[in-house]
């Protein structure tokens, strides 16, 4: 699975959480640009984990601030 196909899957998963339909780039931040609160983060992370069959621990989440960092992390976790 390439970065592009992973990114496409994540783009589809984030859609229902992007309530304000903000245009997302790799630099978009979850807390700032997308205004994700802690409950949204939990549901969104669970959706990603289930789709890719991975764990993104709270420790790893703390390092992920932007959309691009998330895509990179998922690519890495998928090995």
């Amino acid at each position, binding site marked *: 699975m390439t970065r592009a196909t992973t990114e496409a899957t994540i783009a589809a998963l984030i859609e229902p959480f992007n309530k304000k339909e903000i245009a997302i780039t790799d630099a978009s931040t979850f807390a700032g640009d997308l205004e994700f609160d802690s409950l949204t983060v939990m549901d969104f992370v669970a959706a990603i*984990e289930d789709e890719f069959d991975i*764990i993104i621990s*709270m420790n790893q989440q703390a390092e992920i601030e932007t959309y691009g960092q998330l895509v990179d992390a998922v690519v890495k976790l998928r090995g």
Partner: protein
Amino acid sequence: MTDLFSKFDPLIAMRSDLLATGVTDPFSLVMERVISPTVAVCNGRETILLGTYNYMGMTFDPDVIAAGKQALDDFGAGTTGSRCLNGTYAGHKAVEAALCDFYAMDHAMVFSTGYQANLGIISTVAGKGDYIILDIDSHASIWDGCKMGDAEVVPFKHNDIEAMEKRLRRVPEGAGILVVLEGVYSMMGDIAPLKEMITIAKKYGAMVLVDEAHSMGFIGPNGRGVAEDQGVLDQVDFVIGTFSKSVGTVGGFCVSNHPKFEILRLVCRPYVFTASLPPSVVATAAVSIGKLKQGAAKRAHLWENSRTLHAGLKALGFQLGTETPQSAIISVIMPDLERGAGMWEALLHEGLYVNLARPPATPANMTLLRCSLCAEHSAEQVQTIIGMFERAGKLAGII
């Protein structure tokens, strides 16, 4: 210079907005006099207490008080030292023996508070490379224990068995796993499906910690908690509990059958690097725990109170945290913080104290009026409470 306090500005604004509406500050109430486990004087008015954790009403038990006074006379006001150095008195060993007896377990370790028990056990037991799988609605002390340790922390949706199993299945081969659950979740008063969850946790080779702070003394045939009630206490590796609820004083503990458990006394920092509990506190706790064991009649009355209040509030049209009464906590869901504070104040004017709980302590950003019952509430008091809720609910526009 950056003011380090500027991060608190949103909370300061929220608080001043709330107080500007003229409501009594719900977070600075003073109990001027305490008359019994269920009645105190607040703002000069006699008030029924429906927001304490004094589930079994042990705070004024004459045997408990006598034991505390005797210990003050015999051992002094405090130990001034760590459990590992000069802070272990005969009373600390006695209360640990009382806990082993109460839970029928091999080991008990007493901490200065329940918060420290979770902080210490979780941060020490799960180390680097290990995984902690925990319920998202876990108590702050559990989260802080996770934060203090070096393990990978993986939460799952509240009480969701499937979500828990999915995460267990994804833990890398060979990694140690600690599953952290609570018997009763104190915000909504709901219980966990421990039987199913613990069976699954064991299937994946996890060790299991259950916080039974809000169930000790009255849930389960011997008052050992939800795990006992569901028949899985023998599969729990660590039970965390507290003296500040049913036991009626302050302190925390962990009981376990792990053969190497005693080593924790040397490596658990929140146990080592703090002063031990005062002799009077451990003496009151030991007597109280012994009496809780014999508390079958009180347990039955507390359940009766819980059922009556739940049915009464439901019939009045309040929205409750659980469909059925599951514990001694009945949570009334408020539409928002402002109306919740208004209802809280209306109840206080009626002469009733409940807990106003608000985010971030609550799940899903809810504002709750949390009612916790006591075995010493009389049946008449419970009826009085329901009447107060009716009047206050209409005044505050909730029902």
